[in-house]
């Protein structure tokens, strides 16, 4: 029973976060001062997620290995040059497989 109540609490609370601004904004314009910070939500939030994934493990600082970092660099450079995330994955994964197989 507790399990279902917890899941319901997390689910309903999460949906409230998602929907809050859709209901509050309605037909109104957001004030102009919000433009500048909102333009940074994307890079800031992706950076935070990437930082957590690559440099932490089980609640403490712990960087991934050389193979992972090399594949990350390859993905970044490829997407920067081509503008295509799928191509980034296609270049990064073979590098990751090779370096993982080589125990780097």
């Amino acid at each position: 029973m507790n399990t279902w109540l917890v899941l319901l609490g997390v689910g309903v609370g999460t949906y409230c976060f998602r929907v809050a601004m859709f209901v509050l904004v309605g037909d109104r314009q957001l004030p102009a001062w919000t433009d500048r910070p909102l333009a940074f939500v994307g890079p800031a939030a992706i950076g935070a997620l990437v930082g957590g994934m690559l440099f932490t493990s089980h609640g403490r600082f712990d960087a991934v290995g050389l193979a992972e970092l090399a594949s990350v660099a390859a993905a970044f450079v490829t997407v920067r040059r081509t503008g295509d995330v799928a191509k980034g994955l296609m270049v990064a994964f073979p590098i990751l497989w090779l370096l993982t197989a080589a125990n780097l």
Partner: protein
Amino acid sequence: MTVESAVLGASAAAPIDETSRSSGWRLALAGAREMAPMTMGVVPFGFAIGAMIASSSVGVWAGIASAPLVLAGAAQLATLQMLDAGADPAVIVVSALVINLRLLLYGTSLAPWFRGARLRTRLLVAEVVIDQTHFVCVPRFERGDLTLERRVVYYCGAGFSLAGAFVASQVLAVVLGANLPPAARLDMAAPLALVGLLAKATIDVPRTLAAGAAICVAAAAVAMPFHLSTLVATLAAIVVGVTAQLRSGRKAVPS
């Protein structure tokens, strides 16, 4: 009935520039297609969560139900892990909601693009507000060539294809009891897809500084309680980005 009118309600008054069924579906498919690299990234994550559900004490039905209820991988994983470990229910709910506080920021950024849509459309659109829909759809909307109705269709195609694949991959992993082959390194699919997005999002010096600050703070603040580090890193990076932009004297890109 077109996709647009199905989504917006048959009495939607605003004119739409493409009314044929095929163009609506094509637009929804275009959204799904442009989301595909992100979808490829969440499927292995879904498999991993599904495999965890199959081996945890939470129960198969509750575990499967958690996927569509939460629709956010990190918070769902944290919830399931804490339930399995027997943590206090209030602590679990608060921790998961702290992880998901960033959705409030995404909602703030996405909501203006759906201003003027019917309430039930906005309620539906909000269901798939998540990292990937924000990262893929906002830059697409900023190109300025989609009307409100077409933004709804594009967004729903992108968002619900992603959500469907995420939930389906979890169900499949629970049903099959699948274990990921470690040599495939699918654990890196989600971070690599996000790094690709980062390469696209860091279009100038202030945004690059913001992203760098976010990475550093997320790593340095990892020991903060209740998984606060992601949210703190995001907010700190926004401050860094805004400060850098004000110093360089450039104008903000209107959202």
